């Protein structure tokens, strides 16, 4: 087993299975989609995957299946690209296909129109998932005016405005040799990976890394409620959030540790109070997202409709108690033990190790972010954890999103939120 990580190549070799994971990524994502053209990066990458080599989408699908491979187009706010895995015997052909995907896409009009229609159908289907709806409307309202609030899959309006010329501009903007990061894990050696990197880079036009001018989001002022109104709901989906942390913050790890006490494990405060003591929700947790810029801290739960208002009230009380009085030494010791020991499962396969190294590059994480992870967790003191909560978390500035039947839950939910500044009702089938 061997590992290497230059800034444009990650390799984790492991021959225990005849399988290779691959990821070819560009360091620019949907955040750079032009205003009014949300979804263009996603359309572009999917179209490139489908029509590589001048073949039809069906021919490419048959090719990938026949290789014993899987290859998907991935688009996030900060990166885009193609990832998947392949049985070792087909690696050379998969690399040829990846080079074809990257180079000079034809972007045929007929396939673009078909892809747009498929995307619209997928967007419609997503409305059936209450969890997706809660997360979607949290992002749109919490990051309103910021690129993190824009839907990377687009909307019917934005998709309609995107044409081949816009996609070509997107290709020219992102698909340059210096913007490429290659990542391989599994049954290959460093020299094969290095040769693949050269081949893939040479498939792209020359050019530097586009400047990401995205700033930090501002979050919300005051406590704001959004009810996504959906009929016939026996249950609700709740997401409550505020601004969180940035990985370069000095207190980032301290806040991560403190959040684990609040809602990062089964024995955490949220799960114990909401699920174990009251049986209100199957799940209850909190998490700190990381992106290239500051992101959000969110709490979530999904109680039945009658328990929705008391559950929100309890979540707010727990958040305030965590903020006002902090965590204890015993809690800190317990989560440190959990976080340091469970790290073994962040690195127990070659693909997981490679993925962490790739994360460091794509998200501009501080150098050695994961290498020093355990030491930084162990160094956190209870004072640092509580200071991080005080500095970063502001329970008076929260967005509360609830998916449920408004006529049933609306009144009690509004009453359950102290100092509610405003509320909004959004029909669930809003695009």
């Amino acid at each position, binding site marked *: 087993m061997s590992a290497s990580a230059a800034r444009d190549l990650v390799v984790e070799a492991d021959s*225990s299975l005849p399988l290779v994971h691959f990821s070819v990524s560009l360091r620019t994502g949907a955040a750079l989609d032009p205003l009014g053209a949300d979804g263009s990066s996603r359309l572009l990458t999917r179209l490139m995957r489908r029509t590589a080599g001048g073949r039809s989408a069906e021919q490419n699908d*048959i090719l990938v299946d026949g290789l014993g*491979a899987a290859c998907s187009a991935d688009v996030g706010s900060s990166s885009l690209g193609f990832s998947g*895995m392949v049985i070792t015997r087909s690696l050379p052909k998969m690399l040829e296909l990846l080079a074809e995907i990257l180079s000079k896409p034809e972007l045929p009009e007929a396939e673009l129109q078909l892809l747009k229609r498929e995307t619209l159908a997928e967007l*419609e289907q997503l409305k059936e998932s*209450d969890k997706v709806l809660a997360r979607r409307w949290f992002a749109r309202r919490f990051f309103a005016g910021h690129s993190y609030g824009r839907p990377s899959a687009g909307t019917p309006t934005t998709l309609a405005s995107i044409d081949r010329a816009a996609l070509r501009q997107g290709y020219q903007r992102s698909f340059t040799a210096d913007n490429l990061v290659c990542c391989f894990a599994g049954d290959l050696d460093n020299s094969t990976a290095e040769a693949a990197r050269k081949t893939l880079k040479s498939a792209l036009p020359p050019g530097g890394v586009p400047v990401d001018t995205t700033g930090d989001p501002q979050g919300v002022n005051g406590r704001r409620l959004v009810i996504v109104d959906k009929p016939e709901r026996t249950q609700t989906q709740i997401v409550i959030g505020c601004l969180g942390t940035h990985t370069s913050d000095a207190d980032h790890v301290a806040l991560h540790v403190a959040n684990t006490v609040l809602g990062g494990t089964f024995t955490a405060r949220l799960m114990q109070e909401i699920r174990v003591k009251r049986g209100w929700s199957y799940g209850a947790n909190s998490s700190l997202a990381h992106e290239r810029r500051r992101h959000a801290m969110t709490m979530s739960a999904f109680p039945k409709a009658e328990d929705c208002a008391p559950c929100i009230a309890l979540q707010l009380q727990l958040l305030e108690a965590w903020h006002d009085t902090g965590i204890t030494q015993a809690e800190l010791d317990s989560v440190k033990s959990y976080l340091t020991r469970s790290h073994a*499962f962040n690195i127990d396969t070659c693909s997981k190790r490679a993925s962490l190294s790739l994360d460091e590059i794509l998200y501009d994480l501080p150098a050695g972010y994961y290498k020093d992870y355990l030491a930084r967790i162990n160094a956190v003191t209870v004072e640092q954890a509580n200071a991080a909560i005080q500095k970063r978390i502001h329970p008076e500035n929260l967005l509360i999103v609830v998916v449920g039947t408004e006529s049933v839950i609306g009144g009690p939910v509004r009453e359950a939120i102290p100092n509610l500044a405003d509320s909004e009702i959004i029909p669930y089938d809003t695009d």
Partner: protein
Amino acid sequence: MSTLADTEALLQRVNAKAPAGGRVQFVETMPFGSKQQLERYCLANGLSVLLLFDDSAPVVSYHTWYRVGSRHERVGKTGLAHLFEHLMFNETEHLPAGDFDRKMEEAGAESNASTWLDWTQYNAAVPKDQLPLVVELESERMAHLVLREPQVASEKEVVANERRYRVDDDVDGAISELLWATAFKDHAYRWPTIGWMEDIQAFTTSDCEEFYRTYYSPNNATVVVVGDFEREALLRHLAMAYGEMPAAVLPIEQVKPEPPQTAERRVEISKPTVSDKLAVGYRCPALGDFDHPALTLLSEVLFGGRASRLVKKLVRELEIASEVRMFVGPFRDPGLMELTASARDEHRAEELLAVIDEEFARVCSEAVSQAELDRALARFELGMLSGLETADSKASTIGFYETVLGEPGAAFARLASLRRQTPSDLLRVARRYLVPEARSVILVRPSGDDAGDDVEEAAE
């Protein structure tokens, strides 16, 4: 690699101090893929132990598979196996409530459990130095669980919420539940693993106690350990931790084979969906049946990936569906091949069904091509390899095949069987199982449509 003589000497040392019920017997060694060896041991009290040494990472995965699932329940008590799985994380005679989870977390464990038709399993993956703790905790809850009314009441409410999440407010979950209830009339597969809501809410603590006494015993379980462990120390620990537990007298299972279905069953319902949905259940042989591998490949040819016949036809060419998929049941008894599809825009579920019927008629009249079969096999092979990357996924694979088929290394035998299938085999199983008269159909309309505001069932 250890020899048989090494193993015998090791067991002599282990058994020298083991309680009578914990005396360990070596049973067999079998290949697990081309590079690894799986060892089977049995304790005198009937506990099966399967060990796979794998030092690719300094971790160990420890699974306990019980041969009890929702098929062992009865009418009025559905969902008990699943509720009980939740209760197994509670108080024991030697651990106050909450200590089990706290100790697991502080050990860095990834710990969970699941229940399905044929089995219940508990899994914990830990850094290798924490393995002794897992042996202690898992053996403790096998024999010394404490059930109290407040915890049972609270857990019933959690499970009711889980049901709302997975079924009542989830269209796909609700459709699947209705499909199985429509397709099965006698067999215990007709009720959902999570149970009917009225049954969940009616369980008593004594129901749970009886279930525990009946099914949670060493002779109804298999412990699977995969990872970087020291064999003698582990076997000694298992012998001591489980050895005092008596074997239970397991009840005779009252199996009721499903009678042959001779006419299509069709149900129409309305749900808050954005478009029509379709679910169709065709009869499917048991996982261990000779025909199961061929049907698995046929399903891949028809529904596996965008190049498959029906995804291509419905999603890409006709543009009348947003998604379509098929799941071939991996169960101990004959189950269902579950086909689900979502219509696009204003298209009706019947349009989708007509296209599916046409394609099914085609695979019943002419063999699929060798190229299609090869692609289906390659897709399966990729899925299998990616499912063997961690100690935990290997333990899952071993425990699953051991519990359903009694063959812990059957994943590889199954791959070999898949490789032997020919277009003729797929033609044979298509004709045998894609039988419209033996299928159940669920048509789902968006709420508010005139077509089906209430459940209507066509009589057989």
